[in-house]
């Protein structure tokens, strides 16, 4: 899960960079927000992966 989280972080950044390279006008703003959203998702996954798994008391 941690690896997927980091890949999502990188993917979000690639979306942001690609927006500047490929798009113009208001589409850039949308794609920057989209890329940032993907990064937040990646951060959540990395955080969840970092938490120790709760062991069953039984």
């Amino acid at each position, binding site marked *: 899960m941690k690896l997927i989280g980091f890949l999502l972080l*990188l993917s979000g950044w690639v979306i942001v960079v690609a927006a*500047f390279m490929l798009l113009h006008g208001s589409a*850039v703003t949308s794609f920057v927000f989209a*890329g*940032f959203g993907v990064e937040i998702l990646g951060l959540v996954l990395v955080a969840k992966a*970092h938490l120790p798994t709760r062991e069953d008391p039984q």
Partner: protein
Amino acid sequence: MISDPVQLYQLSFLIALIFILLVPFALAGLTLINTGLGRCRSAAHAMTSSLIVIGVAIVVYLVFGFGFQGYRLVTIWGAPYAGLVLRPYFLRGVPWESPLCLAGTLGMLSVALASLVPLGATAERWQLRAACGSTVFLAGFTYPIFVRWTSGLLVSLGLRAAFGDILDAGGSGSIQALGGLTALSLSCLLGPRRGKYSDQGLPAAIPAHNAVFVLFGCMLAWVGWLGLNAAGAMLYAEMQPEGSVLVLINTTFSACAAALTSAAVTRVRFRKPDASLIANGWMAGLVASSAGCATLKPATAMLTGLVAGALVVFSVEFLEFRLKVDDPCGSVSVHAVCGIWGLLAVGIFTSASQFMAQLVGVAMLLGFVFPMTYFLNWLLSRLIPYRVSVDGERQGLDLHELGADAYPEFVVHTDEFIQR
């Protein structure tokens, strides 16, 4: 007012140099804070590793990082000067009478400051040689590539045309958030100190060994930050010398508002103001002030500090209780969280398009710097053991790594290694 461009240039050069000479106070302050917030059996190690890490960072940056970073072509103080069209490894070819050498000097001290940040989050469990190895990556690669991309590559890709430049005069992003995210990745890789969490996952309070160090460190850091922000504003935001008054006021306003907010929040939550969190609040205000020190109005700088002061208290609690990240000095909350807040605050308090530019800077920090530092440090940890042995941790890093205690005349051993 000086109308002669040559005189103006010389005066600006001198004033920027004086501001740069204040920056080592920030390094001293942060070192004292990191040392004071740790336990006494690792105090000498904290100071020694800070000195060594500063040395490694400066050498690596000047030999390799500065050339790798490059420098954008700008007109500064009325006189255009050439960017680094050549690669001045070992500072070859740098014209010593141009602002480029000032940028190199400020960059050298900035990278040293960024390198100190992870030491706070990894206190009492990180081997000295591993810290040196990690600093080589930070000073030689992570910091230069972040600066190179935000001021060069992204601009050429169309960032300036779309939204404008990323405003980060004093380095909320390039120094603080970068150091803070490195601290977060290292803290995750190392895991918590032994005895920090019980079997049920409840964190134990491990108090600071010297609150006086911590609070005096805050005072020193204030002086250093005034120099850092003012020099950054003159070199990177093309501010004239008279504009430095606004920078000094913004920086101080932000720190004061943040410290007062932290005091109020901790007073409400814990019934008494907490000294270490107030110190963290003060530092958070300084960190958050850096990005917009030359742009914000004093009122908005105060608001930035106010939010930072509250943010740092909740962030420390969230990281410790919810995410189980053991960060003895609150480095991640102060430098990463409040650095990112400082970057965003400039956009929030100026314009929508500036906010988008700032968001791109944050996106680079989260999407590129954080995974890269995690990966590089993970790779290095396969080659060099990062964490000290159990015995070393129990003994304290002073005795284990240096062979002598910081305070040999008194011995303090607590029972935090007993399983709860």
